[in-house]
């Protein structure tokens, strides 16, 4: 491929849409949309649906980027009935939305919808990254509504030694930073990129240029690129609470967290729990996730570590092979 052709291929791929699996919106509340994915395999999992709770700080289509890079497709291929929460893009009208609103209203609404639809008392939940924190809080507050909980690259101990973000925000006056507005997604991107600036702002692009110029690779790159920079603004109140309560005060570990006036005590979480950790995760250090084991009251606790980074846990070829199968295997007897 010539240089001009490579350039043209990049330009053409810049409009590749992320998302490959068929889904339908089944429930909405304000900007939140709950999706249910269409099955592609014989049902498994005992008919208990799996609700994926994604983070607020990025868009959830990373879970279903393209056919060969889709955790959701892998789960569907295992016969699971998959739901996904899309939190939407908060705007200025959402600036006072709190964590209690997200956990005890929006998330409760999604769970209720699914339980009513399936006539069940409890569902399976997969919390991803910050979504894992929300899932843990939800489970502690509503233990009877979750049958099995899976946490993926989820921070629990926010003061682990390798946690650079935590060190950076430790002395920031987060109330003043947020003010009464939202937090810009662009500003957060800048922060995340500056965790590893040479790799994320330089080497990545050199890799693209120096690698093979095949169209699939370029399109995959552009979809990930879209995901990285398509970052929603954060509802100011919820963001302030998250940074203060989790990053600065480490309330989950110190057992001092309250949501909507009720205590979130991880010791009361006694359901079967699968914790998926990326050993090379620079955003959520393994120790930050591994702390979960000593904090929950569950006897049925499984931890699986993958030699992958944070994003690799969603979209690497190895993750596609191993993560959905591991989840399905773990859920099967439960």
């Amino acid at each position: 491929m010539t240089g001009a052709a490579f350039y043209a291929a990049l330009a053409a791929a810049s409009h590749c849409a992320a998302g490959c699996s068929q889904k339908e919106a089944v429930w909405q509340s304000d900007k939140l949309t709950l999706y249910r994915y269409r099955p592609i395999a014989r049902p498994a999992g005992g008919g208990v649906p799996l609700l994926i709770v994604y983070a607020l700080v990025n868009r959830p289509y990373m879970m279903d980027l393209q056919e060969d890079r889709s955790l959701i497709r892998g789960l569907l291929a295992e016969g699971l009935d998959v739901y996904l929460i899309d939190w939407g893009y908060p705007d200025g009208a959402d600036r006072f939305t709190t964590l209690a609103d997200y956990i005890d209203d929006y998330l409760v609404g999604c769970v209720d919808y699914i339980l009513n639809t399936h006539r069940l008392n409890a569902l399976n939940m997969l919390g991803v990254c910050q979504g894992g924190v929300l899932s843990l809080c939800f489970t502690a507050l509503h233990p009877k509504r979750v049958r099995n909980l899976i946490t993926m690259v989820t921070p629990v101990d926010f003061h682990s030694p390798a946690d650079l973000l935590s060190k950076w925000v430790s002395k920031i006056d987060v109330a003043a930073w947020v003010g009464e507005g939202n937090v810009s997604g662009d500003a957060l991107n800048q922060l995340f990129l500056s965790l590893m600036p040479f790799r994320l702002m330089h080497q990545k692009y050199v890799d693209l240029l120096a690698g093979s110029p095949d169209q699939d690779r370029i399109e995959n790159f552009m979809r990930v690129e879209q995901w990285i920079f398509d970052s929603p603004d954060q509802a100011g109140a919820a963001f302030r609470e998250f940074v203060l309560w989790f990053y600065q005060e480490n309330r989950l570990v110190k057992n001092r967290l309250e949501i909507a006036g009720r205590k979130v005590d991880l010791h009361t979480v006694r359901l079967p729990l699968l914790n998926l950790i990326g050993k090379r995760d620079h955003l959520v250090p393994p120790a930050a996730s591994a702390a979960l084991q000593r904090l929950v009251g569950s006897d049925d606790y499984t931890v699986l570590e993958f030699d992958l980074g944070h994003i690799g846990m969603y979209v690497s070829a190895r993750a596609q092979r191993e993560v959905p199968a591991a989840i399905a295997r773990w859920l099967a007897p439960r």
Partner: protein
Amino acid sequence: MSPFAVRMESGIVDHELWRQWQAFATLLSSAGPAPQARPAHDGGFGFAPFIDAAERFTAAARTILDGAGSASARTADEAARTFSDFLREHFADFQMPWNAGLGAAGVQPAPMENSPAFGPTREHQQRWQRTAEAWRRIDDARRRLQRLWSDALSEAATAFAARLGPPPYAAAMSAEAARKLYDLWIECAEEAYARAAHGEAFCEALSEFVNASSQWRREVQASIEHSAKLLDLPTRSEINTLSHRLRSVEEQLRAASKTRKPRAPAGGAKRARRRVKR
């Protein structure tokens, strides 16, 4: 002994290194479109900066190695220092948070003496003094961060030179070998940066930068709101007040709904939620 000296003694390694970087730059250049094929609105965005980076890196390596090879007085350590300076300069304006994004944007306020404020303009003068003070703090924190960044780059360049060692490359230089050199530089840079970024000085400076930026924004917002009020334009503060009142009404409705229906669906009174029609 510096690895640069080792290369000079071997007599061929310096040229090898230069050729490897040259090939790497050529490789990247070949990926780019011809100038006339480049869209006018591209504005250099895309991969042009990375091609430029490789070319400049190559040119710097050539200058250093040529100089080191011809002038006996120039020591290997000087060559390493020159190289370090180049790297520091090249990456000095990287888009780090203190250069863009998180910080205060706009025009630096005019310097204002810390003169006592009194009379009808007292409040305005004090606000402008606070704004100027916030800007001074931002600037100070930015300088500290830039210095730490520069030190990290210098440390990275030294580590890079130390880790080059004897070249494992074949006489026929390959693009793969050039990539290894580049990747080694990135690795050294990330390691040096991580050491700095985890350090107390960096965390302190970054916090100060963000906190001062927050103060600057708050003061500027107050100034703009003052002007808006003079023109009877709605302000963000007024909208926030209304939003708080609306939330309060929603909460009261929710509580009332729970009182009326003890077994209401979890989540209480619903927002604008609906089941999506299929």
